[in-house]
């Protein structure tokens, strides 16, 4: 399975219910993929969910950067 397909599957498994948008970016340097998630709210166990994804991807040899942004409805800079 390709890195993007695998990452998307894992992110949907862990964050599907919280997800507003999944933005795929990069890669820009040595990483395999960059993903930015826009979430409705932050799950209380985000650290554990994020850890599981990173650990799984590292075991598969993939270096994926995942960012989490909780949308607050504002465009304030």
């Amino acid at each position, binding site marked *: 399975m390709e890195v993007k397909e695998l990452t998307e599957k894992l992110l949907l498994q862990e964050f599907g219910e919280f997800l507003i948008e999944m933005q795929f*970016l*990069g890669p*820009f*340097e*040595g*990483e395999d993929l*960059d993903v*930015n998630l826009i979430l409705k709210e932050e799950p209380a166990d985000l*650290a*554990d969910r*994020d*850890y599981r994804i*990173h*650990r799984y991807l*590292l075991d598969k040899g993939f*270096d994926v*950067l*995942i*960012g*989490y*942004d909780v949308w*607050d409805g504002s465009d*304030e*800079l």
Partner: protein
Amino acid sequence: MIEIDFAREILAMVRAFLLLGMRTQPMYRIILSRLYYAAHHVGRLMLRNVGLTPEQWYADVHRRVLDELERHFVSTGTMSRNAWRSLWQLRQLRTLADYTLSTPIRLRNINQGMTLFTTYFDECRRILGVI
């Protein structure tokens, strides 16, 4: 420990910039980049303390620092998953800041970066016995 001093100085600099109202896109991008690299250097210090030689790594250094931190500190229960993933997320924020100029960096991204940095840095200092 030069890495700890550097990280403290970066944190103080970022707080000062924000207090002075330096809230521009270039400044936000500089802040996220400096926070990540300060954290990365602390990670290298942690790994040197367990006998590794990150200064001799020439490929995939950023990924390898994270991988080795997990192996030596997280899987042994010394470092929390939350601190470890904070470094991952800082790395992602830094990449976003440095490469995606079309995506505005928002104040909430800066606040998030500060929280991630302090979570990670506080825990590293605790492990290193440097308060």
